[in-house]
């Protein structure tokens, strides 16, 4: 992924993008996302938000497989959520709550990490695009709405 001044920037992989990579038989419609994710990994530009590590481990209940997953994830570049981004996540959630929508905390942490780092988010969760559209069509001046508007969804993301 390249920014507007031609400098290579990293890409944040949402948990859903990581799950597609983990599938032996991923859905055909996710082919573009998987191709992009693999290219970014090969170039050393793909990062996982820390909450994605949590979500991936929540999804593995088999002890042996959980140990294998944990070990492999220690080698994958991961971004911790700094306190500034945690504040951003809170504001983004307050905006969604004000609009009457669901507020999944992992989504907020993933979105805030991408917005705070100013890097594209590659995701197969269409709710990110929905929240982004909601913020763009809203006239709200809530800081959370502003933060959502700053989110840069990678073009290969679902509904981007």
């Amino acid at each position, binding site marked *: 992924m390249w920014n507007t001044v031609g400098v290579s920037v990293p890409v944040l992989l949402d948990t859903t993008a990581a799950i597609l990579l983990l599938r032996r038989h991923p859905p055909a419609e996710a082919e573009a996302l998987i191709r992009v994710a693999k290219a970014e990994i*090969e170039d*050393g530009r793909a990062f996982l938000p820390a909450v994605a590590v949590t979500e991936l481990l929540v*999804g593995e209940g088999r002890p042996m497989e959980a140990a294998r997953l944990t070990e*492999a994830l220690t080698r*994958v570049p991961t971004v911790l959520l700094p306190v500034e981004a945690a504040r951003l996540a809170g504001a983004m959630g307050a905006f969604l709550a004000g609009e009457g*929508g669901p507020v999944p905390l*992992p989504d907020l942490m993933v979105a805030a990490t991408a917005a705070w780092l100013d890097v594209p988010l590659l995701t*197969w969760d269409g709710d990110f695009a929905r929240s982004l559209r909601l913020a763009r069509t809203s006239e709200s001046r809530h800081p959370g709405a502003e933060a959502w508007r700053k989110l840069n969804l990678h073009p290969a993301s679902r509904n981007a």
Partner: protein
Amino acid sequence: MRTTLNLDRELLEEAKTALRAASFTEAIETALREVVARARAREGWAELMGSDLSWGSAEELVEYRRRFGARAP
């Protein structure tokens, strides 16, 4: 560790500038760390790809997230 290397001077200068390193030693160490980190990341991803570990599908996780956030104020 002290050692003797035959290096391309121009390349070394360029790497030092690109990495904003204070010395040639720092530039070399930073570049080596980067290479090792990238190799480790590729190994980690290679272990994960096609492993069928974790969630059965991305949709399962999306549903889980929606349930997780459904009780917001």
